[in-house]
């Protein structure tokens, strides 16, 4: 078993769980609360006879990437939701007044 302690102020729980998920192929992963703003993650090899090595380094990288994914998802969530809605919707969800304007009125002054 390998135990890793994680400070939730650095890596939110969401990122921790996402990082853990791919490791469940070869490990049983136990996530436990460890007091104020901390969790421990224990890796128990599924196959006793073939314990995989180098888990700490791999997991650290996975945590970083998971954190990054959480950030990117948060930053792009609103646009993504609008995008998907717009793709399936006949009506316009954005403020697209200009696009629906009359070419004679030409509010954007495209004609110069």
């Amino acid at each position, binding site marked *: 078993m390998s135990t890793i302690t994680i400070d939730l102020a650095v890596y939110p729980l969401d990122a921790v769980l996402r990082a853990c998920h791919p490791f469940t192929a070869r490990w049983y992963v136990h996530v436990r609360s460890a007091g104020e703003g901390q969790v421990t993650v224990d890796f128990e090899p599924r196959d006793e006879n073939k314990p995989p090595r180098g888990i700490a380094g791999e997991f650290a990288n996975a945590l970083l990437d998971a954190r990054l994914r959480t950030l990117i998802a948060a930053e792009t969530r609103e646009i993504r939701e609008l995008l998907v809605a717009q793709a399936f919707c006949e009506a316009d969800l954005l403020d697209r007044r*200009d*696009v*629906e304007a009359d*070419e*004679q009125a*030409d509010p*954007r002054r*495209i004609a110069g």
Partner: protein
Amino acid sequence: MRLHETARVAGIEHTLIGRVTRTALGDETERTNAWLLAEGSALACDPAGYLGILAIGDAAAFSGLRGAFGLRQLSYLDDGDVVAVDPNGLVRTLYRRASMHNFILVTDQCNSLCLMCSQPPKAIDDFDRLAEHLRLLDLIDPATKELGITGGEPTLFREGFLELIARCRERLPSTALHVLTNGRMFFYRRFAEKLGRIAHPDLVLGIPLYSDVDTRHDHIVQAHGAFEETVLGLQNLDRHGVRVEIRVVLHALSIPRLPQLATFIARNFPFACHVALMGLEMFGLVHRHLDELWIDPADYQRQLLAACEVLGDAGMNVSIYNHQLCVLDPELRPLSRKSISDWKNVYLPECDGCALMSECGGFFQSGTKLRSAHVRPVGRPQTPSNGV
């Protein structure tokens, strides 16, 4: 050839437009729309009922008749060609049945100012030309295979532009229409919808896109926001069933990211019916921006090949215009179209002996001074001896 001449006119108070004829016309309406040609001193028939006379001889020889006189040449005109005569004596050939490249220059106005513009715009309000264009459409032979609609920027006429397309559909339903436009007005979706609703049976809008990067495109066309407008315009046109062609002029500003532009076109505008990659015309505003724009075509074959590969892989139709075959990578020669129109082609002394001359478009007249340093005759392919 389209000729403009100044003649002496009589009885022309406003511009008159009519079809040309050398022989008598039986139908009364046809006569009122026709110019009777007089190459000698006599008329082929009684001039009564005709729009007027176009004559080489003096007005004196045709006393009292309305028309244009003292013209230098009439032999190039065929029956059915359309000629306008202005009150100031200007005689303009608007349409020639024998030509493969008839077009209507809708307006001299433009809302872009491309660095390489070969038809520099004028800041005038020439909206009143619409009436003339509509009149011309009434007179063009419906058997005409193709007609161009150009400018300036034709869509600046807005409803007038739509009226032109509708008139084409009505009068010339078998004539393929090719409109050259920057497409920016189609940012307004409803404008695209109206054009779509006309349902012209064979309409293509040729729309330039010079970069996959908005700021670069805007710089080349010298109009802020043009990229956004053109890109949304392309989408709106497709949404409303209007066919589009995308045109790229190749020069030092568009070449560096040409393969990326090809990817951009393939991913975002797969519906484009054609992509035209065009050599630079050395005519017009380009001369003010030569430093920024000039690149020897022989030096950009790598990017051109890469771009054509991307577009070809995506199953898009690609043509290369305005390039000499010797300057093109041999793999690209099949994409080259002999496009320089019949009244502009020339060849150079260094072309002598070239095996590909008949397939090559040669040069623009304007393009013979500054052109590729690599123009050379292409050798004949080896032929086996003794007919093996």
